[in-house]
């Protein structure tokens, strides 16, 4: 991530022609939407500058400061652009308060994405010269071709042994596409099946129609044939130790929607509702574990685990006194064993899987899974969640409420 010096920023602020710059006087009314469009367009970097785009909030069109007071709230609202899940895959950007020409400005620096096309609200925004627009077919193809192999995350690596016929066309066209793109975009474009798959990163490119890890994960007819570890193993143990007898076991596979829905059904079936009619004048209904917490931990495990060179599944061990959810692969990127679970610290090993989970509706916003799970556990009366991290796994333990 590049940080511009004050001199460079001043230069950019003054250059009225550049298509890497956008200025906004304030962050009111329609501006949050336009700023998101601009962030999306900078991330797509259609002109191929390979340089970050910069957005100034608090500057007039001619580069003069507008005299805006840059508050914490404004900075938070700007940072929200990254995590509210409307721009997918998640953009790499920084938000900071800078003082230029003696005036306060909020500066948003957006790195070009390694994984274009980037969408905002189901539309691919681009910059061509001074204008912002929605990409046409040709421009979209340029963006797809620009994905570079060398520093791609594993989730969009090609899986050479797979064929396009290993992807389910009906899931793609009926379930994925309508959620991924705005209806008007879908209606007016006449891209082929292959072009659409490539745009969604499900295959490498229209010419080289090899499914990616993401394609198999999201749309595969039998993804575990190619990614044996991409499944969830459930074990119900009658006792408190792994050596105790197993009373229910299932390996849950399939493409992500089927896998997660079946896993949740299984968990729901085991999370038996207890009706207590003795301890209070009116009966109380209670669950040993809060469903929303289990759900968040499970989604987190599936999203953040490593899919690379491992055949380990996500493992859910349900003991009499606790549930353990094991996610293969240790903490990633910014997240370390030391800072794990602290608010605001997130990173994405699988940014494109994050995109798919958001598109299918499993995730509403990013970076809120663990806080939500913690809150739900507290509300339900369970002991605090425990996280154990190592090089090879993250294990979350939910203890039963006593």
């Amino acid at each position, binding site marked *: 991530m590049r940080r511009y010096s004050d001199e460079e920023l001043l230069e950019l602020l003054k250059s009225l022609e550049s298509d890497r710059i956008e200025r906004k006087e304030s962050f009111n009314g329609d501006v949050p939407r336009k700023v998101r469009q601009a962030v999306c367009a900078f991330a797509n970097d259609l002109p191929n500058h390979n340089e970050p785009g910069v957005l100034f909030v608090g500057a007039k069109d001619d580069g003069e400061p507008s005299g805006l007071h840059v508050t914490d709230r404004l900075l938070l609202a700007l940072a929200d652009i990254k995590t509210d899940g409307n721009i997918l895959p998640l953009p790499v950007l920084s938000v900071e308060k800078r003082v230029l020409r003696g005036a306060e400005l909020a500066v948003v620096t957006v790195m070009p994405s390694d994984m274009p096309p980037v969408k905002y609200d189901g539309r691919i925004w681009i910059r061509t010269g001074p204008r912002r627009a929605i990409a046409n077919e040709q421009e979209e193809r340029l963006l797809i071709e620009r994905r570079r192999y060398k520093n791609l995350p594993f989730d969009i690596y090609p899986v050479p042994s797979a064929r396009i016929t290993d992807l389910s066309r*009906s*899931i793609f066209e*009926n*379930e*994925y596409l*309508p*959620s991924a793109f705005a*209806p008007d975009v879908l209606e007016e474009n006449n891209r082929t099946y292959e072009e659409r798959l490539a745009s969604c990163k499900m295959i490498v490119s229209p010419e080289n129609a090899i499914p990616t890890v993401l394609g198999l994960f999201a749309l595969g007819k039998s993804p575990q044939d190619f990614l044996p570890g991409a499944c969830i193993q459930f074990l119900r143990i009658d006792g408190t130790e792994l050596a105790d007898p197993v009373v229910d076991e299932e390996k849950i596979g399939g493409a992500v*929607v089927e896998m*997660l*829905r079946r896993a949740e059904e299984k968990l729901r079936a085991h999370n038996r509702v207890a009706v207590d009619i003795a301890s209070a004048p009116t009966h109380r209904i209670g669950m040993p574990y809060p469903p929303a917490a289990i759900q968040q931990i499970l989604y987190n495990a599936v999203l953040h685990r490593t899919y690379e060179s491992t055949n380990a599944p996500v493992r859910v061990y349900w003991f009499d006194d606790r549930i353990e959810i094991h996610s293969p692969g240790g903490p990633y990127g910014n997240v370390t064993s030391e800072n794990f679970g602290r608010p605001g610290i997130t990173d994405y090993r699988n940014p494109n899987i994050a995109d798919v989970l958001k598109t*299918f*509706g*499993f995730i509403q916003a990013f970076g809120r899974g663990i806080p939500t799970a913690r809150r739900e556990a507290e509300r339900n009366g369970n002991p605090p969640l425990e996280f154990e991290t190592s090089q090879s796994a993250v294990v979350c333990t939910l203890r039963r409420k006593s």
Partner: protein
Amino acid sequence: MISPVLTFFNNKGGVGKTSLIYHLAWMFASLRKRIVAADLDPQANLTAAFLTEEEIEAIWEEEKPGSTVFQCVKPLAGVGDIAEPHLRRIAPDLYLLPGDVRLSGYEESLSMEWPNSMGDHNLYRPMRILSSFWQVMQMAARAVRADLVLVDIGPNLGAINRSALLATDYVAIPLGADLFSLQGLGNLGPALRSWKNLWKKRLDNWRESGEARLYPDFHLPEGKMQPIGYLCQQHGVRLERPVQAYDKWVQRIPGGYRKHVLNEEHIPKISQEEDPYCLAIIKHYRSLIPMAQECRKPIFNLTSADGAIGSHANAVQDARKDFRLLAEKIAGEIGLQL
């Protein structure tokens, strides 16, 4: 700024009114129109569609001024004035003015002040009470700069609904395909016309009273109540007999609407599909409805994660198109730019 108010009204219950308003509110908001959904039905079904039971309980127990429609107008029943409404933000362009079961207690004040407002003196208070729903809704609309207020009211011709309709610019009438809906039109149409006239008399009376000059900032609704059309529920058809019965009522609706609601003599022979007053035929979305209720979202926002997979996914897309068309049609009728 005065925001247009659109009320859905039928004195026959169970015609899918609340669900319709709920979905339209979401659809308008997704088309980037700022919406206030006001729940003036003391049964508070619309509120229950937007909020969980715990959230509603918290609002009702708190008894904060302005937290519900009732808490806004309650001070008026004593010696106070209308409290600033406290809206719940549901989505970026969607706000709810929560309903309240205790609103039914306000019915009495409203019926009492109705004759008083035709008196010779002291008209301010009666007029203020009779127009209180309008005041509250306009305050709410101003607070968030709303483009449209959508109102849900109960299925009756009582004083609460009379006041709610005085506050209304446009009325849409949801119908079921049965005898009761058609019969209901016979009460509803004349009631609307009569309320409109009676309110006009009160407005004139107020303006001539001289008291009006003492309160230059006191604005009153026009009581336009313009009917913009009806919506009909599609019947889940399976056996032959219900189809025939259904058909019979369906065919009589265009005529019934003209005769009772529009007070027209000439009744053309047309079917609902070609009737310009038919805003939409609402489909039966079957299992999508319980799925959506469980997830607290409109059916057209259901995702694969919610279980809208396979044929459900297609139904979700269709529902989005249907409601979008309906929103566009309604916007056209009330002159709202989309």
